[in-house]
C-alpha cells in the first residue's frame, strides 16, 4: 500500500512541469555545491532555506530535496577527478576513485559512482516509504519519558560517532548545543531563561541562522585563511595524470554508459550491504552520510573477495560501497526526521528547521495530520534521483570549468548569501549577529576538532529534552525511577545510553574512535605534502 502511495505522489509531482523543472535545477545546483570543496549539502540547504522563505512550500521542498540529493552525489566528482572530496561523505570514494582517474578511467569511475548513487538513493527512498509509516505508528505510543530518552540518545550517539578526535569532544559539543537551546522563554513555566534582559535573546536563538553560522561561515574562513587561498577552489596540481577537462570530456553528455549500471549490478552483495549500512547509519540521530560512507567502505574492504584489487584503480567495490551508502543515508536520515522529529544527519537537521519555518511539524502525528507527507517527500527524492541521472550526464563536461572557480571569488559570495538568508527569515539584524558569532565560534571549534553536528543536534533537541524531562517528572511527582520502569522502550533506551557511556569511558578512557581512523588518516593526507593512504 505504501508503495502505491509513493507512486501516486511521484506521478502527482511529475504532472507539474514547474516542480519537475525546479527539482532538476536544484539537483544541478546541489551537484555543483557538492563538488566544490568547502560547499556542502548541509550548507546548501541552510542557505537555500533562508533564501526560499517566500517561495511556495511545494517549490521550497522540491529545491531543498534536490539540493540534498545532488549535494551528496556531487562530492564524488571532485573526489575522482582531483583527489579532493567536495564533501566529507565523498572522502572514502576519493581513495580508489582517484586511482581510477590516474589510470585514465575517470569517466567510467564517475559513471559507476553515479549509478551507485542512484541505486543507493532508491533504496533509501524505499526504506523511507516502507519504514517511516510503521515507525510513526510505534512512535504514537511514545510518552514524554521515551521522547526525553530518544533525544538524549540522539545527542549522545551523534557526539560519540561523528567526532574525529576524542569522544568527549562530541559530548561537550552536544552539551554546548543544549545550553544554547535553553536560551529564551521556558514553554512550561513561562519564565525567561538566560536572556539577561535582552529582548533579542528572550525569543531564543533562531535555528537557521545558527546553522548557517556553524556550517557556512567556518568554510568561508577556512577556504580563505589557508595558504594559497587565491588558488582555484580545487588544487589541480599533481592530482591526475590527465587534465580535469580531458577527464571530464570522456564522460560526455549524452554518451552511452559503457555498462556502468551493469558494473554496479555485478556487485550486488556490496550494494545490498552498503545500502543497509547507509539506511541504518542514516537513521541514527545526527550521524549522517559521511560516517555511513566510511563504514560501508570499511565493510566492503573487509568482506571483499578481490582484496588484491584494492588500491590498484580497478576495484569497483571501493567506489560503489561508499556512494551507495552515503546516498542511501539520505532516505535513512529522513525516517527519524519525519516520524520522530529527530534528524538523522546534518542536512536533515537543517531540513527540520525548514519544515518548522513552513509550519510543518514532523513527529508521530505526521501520519495523522498529513498522512501523505512522508510519501510526498519520498517522491520528491525519487524525482531528484531521475534528475540526478540526467544532470550527472549534462554536468560532466562543464564541471571541470566550474571546479576552477577560485575560492577568493566564491567564498565572499557565500558570506553574502549567508547574511541575506539569515536576515530573510525573521527580518532581525540580531540573526545576522548570530551568523557571524556562531561562524567565528564554529571555526575555532572546528580547529580544535569539535564537530558541528552534535552542537547543532543539541540546539535542535534541547527543547525536546528539557520539556519532556520535566513533563515526565511532573506526571510522576518527581519520581525518577519512572524513566526505567515506564515501558520496555524506555528500558531499552536507558540500557543503550548506559552502554554507550560505559563503553566509551571504561576501555579506552575517552580515547579516539577506531572506526574513524581511516577518515583521520585520509584527511591528514589531504594536507600539503601528504599522500593518500593505501588500503
Amino acid at each position: 500500500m505504501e508503495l502505491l502511495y509513493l507512486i501516486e505522489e511521484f506521478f502527482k509531482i511529475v504532472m507539474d512541469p514547474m516542480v519537475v523543472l525546479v527539482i532538476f535545477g536544484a539537483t544541478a545546483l546541489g551537484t555543483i555545491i557538492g563538488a566544490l570543496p568547502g560547499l556542502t549539502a548541509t550548507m546548501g540547504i541552510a542557505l537555500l532555506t533562508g533564501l526560499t522563505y517566500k517561495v511556495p512550500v511545494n517549490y521550497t521542498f522540491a529545491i531543498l530535496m534536490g539540493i540534498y540529493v545532488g549535494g551528496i552525489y556531487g562530492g564524488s566528482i571532485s573526489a575522482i577527478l582531483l583527489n579532493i572530496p567536495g564533501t566529507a561523505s565523498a572522502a572514502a570514494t576519493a581513495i580508489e576513485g582517484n586511482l581510477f582517474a590516474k589510470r585514465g578511467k575517470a569517466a567510467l569511475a564517475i559513471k559507476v559512482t553515479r549509478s551507485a548513487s542512484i541505486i543507493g538513493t532508491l533504496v533509501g527512498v524505499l526504506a523511507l516509504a516502507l519504514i517511516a509509516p510503521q515507525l510513526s505508528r510505534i512512535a504514537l505510543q511514545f510518552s514524554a519519558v521515551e521522547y526525553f530518552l530518544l533525544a538524549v540518545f540522539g545527542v549522545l550517539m551523534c557526539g560519540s560517532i561523528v567526532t574525529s578526535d576524542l569522544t568527549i569532544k562530541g559530548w561537550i559539543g552536544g552539551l554546548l548545543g543544549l545550553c544554547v537551546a535553553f536560551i529564551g522563554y521556558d514553554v512550561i513555566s513561562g519564565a525567561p531563561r538566560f536572556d539577561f534582559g535582552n529582548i533579542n535573546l528572550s525569543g531564543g536563538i533562531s535555528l537557521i541562522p545558527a546553522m548557517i553560522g556553524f556550517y557556512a561561515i567556518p568554510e568561508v574562513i577556512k577556504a580563505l585563511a589557508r595558504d594559497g587561498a587565491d588558488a582555484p577552489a580545487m588544487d589541480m596540481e599533481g592530482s591526475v595524470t590527465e587534465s580535469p577537462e580531458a577527464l571530464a570530456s570522456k564522460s560526455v553528455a549524452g554518451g552511452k554508459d559503457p555498462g556502468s549500471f551493469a558494473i554496479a549490478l555485478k556487485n550486488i552483495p556490496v550494494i545490498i550491504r552498503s545500502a543497509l549500512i547507509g539506511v541504518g547509519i542514516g537513521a541514527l540521530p545526527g550521524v549522517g552520510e559521511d560516517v555511513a560512507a566510511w563504514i560501508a567502505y570499511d565493510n566492503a574492504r573487509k568482506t571483499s573477495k578481490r582484496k588484491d584489487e584494492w588500491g590498484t584503480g580497478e576495484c569497483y567495490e571501493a567506489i560503489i560501497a561508499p556512494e551507495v551508502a552515503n546516498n542511501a543515508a539520505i532516505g535513512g536520515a529522513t525516517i527519524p526526521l519525519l516520524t520522530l522529529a529527530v534528524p538523522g544527519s546534518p542536512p536533515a537537521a537543517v531540513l527540520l528547521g525548514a519544515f518548522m519555518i513552513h509550519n510543518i511539524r514532523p513527529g508521530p502525528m505526521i501520519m495523522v495530520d498529513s498522512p501523505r507527507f512522508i510519501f510526498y517527500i519520498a517522491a520528491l527524492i525519487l524525482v531528484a534521483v531521475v534528475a540526478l541521472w540526467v544532470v550527472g550526464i549534462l554536468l560532466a563536461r562543464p564541471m571541470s570549468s566550474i571546479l576552477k572557480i577560485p575560492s577568493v571569488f566564491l567564498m565572499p559570495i557565500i558570506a553574502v548569501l549567508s547574511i541575506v538568508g539569515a536576515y530573510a527569515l525573521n527580518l532581525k539584524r540580531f540573526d545576522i549577529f548570530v551568523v557571524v558569532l556562531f561562524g567565528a565560534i564554529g571555526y575555532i571549534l572546528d580547529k580544535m576538532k569539535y564537530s558541528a553536528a552534535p552542537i547543532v543536534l543539541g540546539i535542535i533537541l534541547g527543547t525536546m529534552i528539557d520539556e519532556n524531562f520535566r513533563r515526565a517528572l511532573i506526571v510522576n511527582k518527581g519520581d525518577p525511577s519512572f524513566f526505567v520502569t515506564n515501558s520496555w522502550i524506555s528500558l531499552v533506551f536507558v540500557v543503550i545510553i548506559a552502554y554507550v557511556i560505559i563503553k566509551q569511558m571504561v576501555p579506552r578512557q575517552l580515547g579516539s574512535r577506531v572506526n574513524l581512523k581511516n577518515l583521520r588518516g585520509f584527511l591528514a593526507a589531504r594536507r600539503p605534502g601528504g599522500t593518500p593512504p593505501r588500503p
Partner: protein
Amino acid sequence: MEKSTLRRADLLFSIALILGSLWFMIQSIKLFLNPFGRKWEAVPAEAVKETLTFWYKSPALMPFFVSLLVLLCSVMLFHVAMKSGARLDFIKKDKIAAFLKNREFQSFVVITLLLCVYAFVLIPVCGKLLVRIRIIRGFPFFVATFIYLLSMMLAFGHRKLGHAVRSLLVSFLVSGIVTYAFGTLAKIPLP
C-alpha cells in the same frame, strides 16, 4: 593542527569550559530560586519553599544538570590533555606574538572583521545615506555588498592588476544579481 598543539588548545579550552560551566551553574541556581527574575527582596519565602518542594517543575532543572555534565566533561578533557603532556607553558610573550603573527589567525581576524563591518557598518550606513537613490530596489544593499565583495577579493587575492579588474567586475555583477534576484524577483527583504 599538530596533536601536541591540539592538546594544549584542549587544556586551555577545558579551563574556559570549567569556568563557563560554573558560571552557568550559578545562573541556574539563581533561576531555580528566582525564576521570574524579581528583585531578591521581593521573592517571598513561600515561593522559595514551594520551588524546593516542587523542584522537578523548575525551568532551571535541566540547565543545572547540563552545566554539571559540562563541568564533568571539562574536567575529563583537562585530565586527558594533562596526561598527554600538555602544559600551560605556552602562555609566553614570544609564543603569543608568534600566534598573533600566524597567517591563518590573521586571516581569520580579517575575515571576521570584514564580515562584521559589512553586516553592522556598511549595510546600515549605506541604508541611511543612499535610501533616497532608487535606481534599483535595494540599491543601498547593492553598494554595501559591492564594497564588501571587492574588499574581500582584493584582500585575499593576487596583488595584480588583472585580478583587481576581475574582482571589480565579479563584485559588481554578483552584487547586482543578488540584489535583483532576491530583492526584486524573489521579493526577499534585504538587510
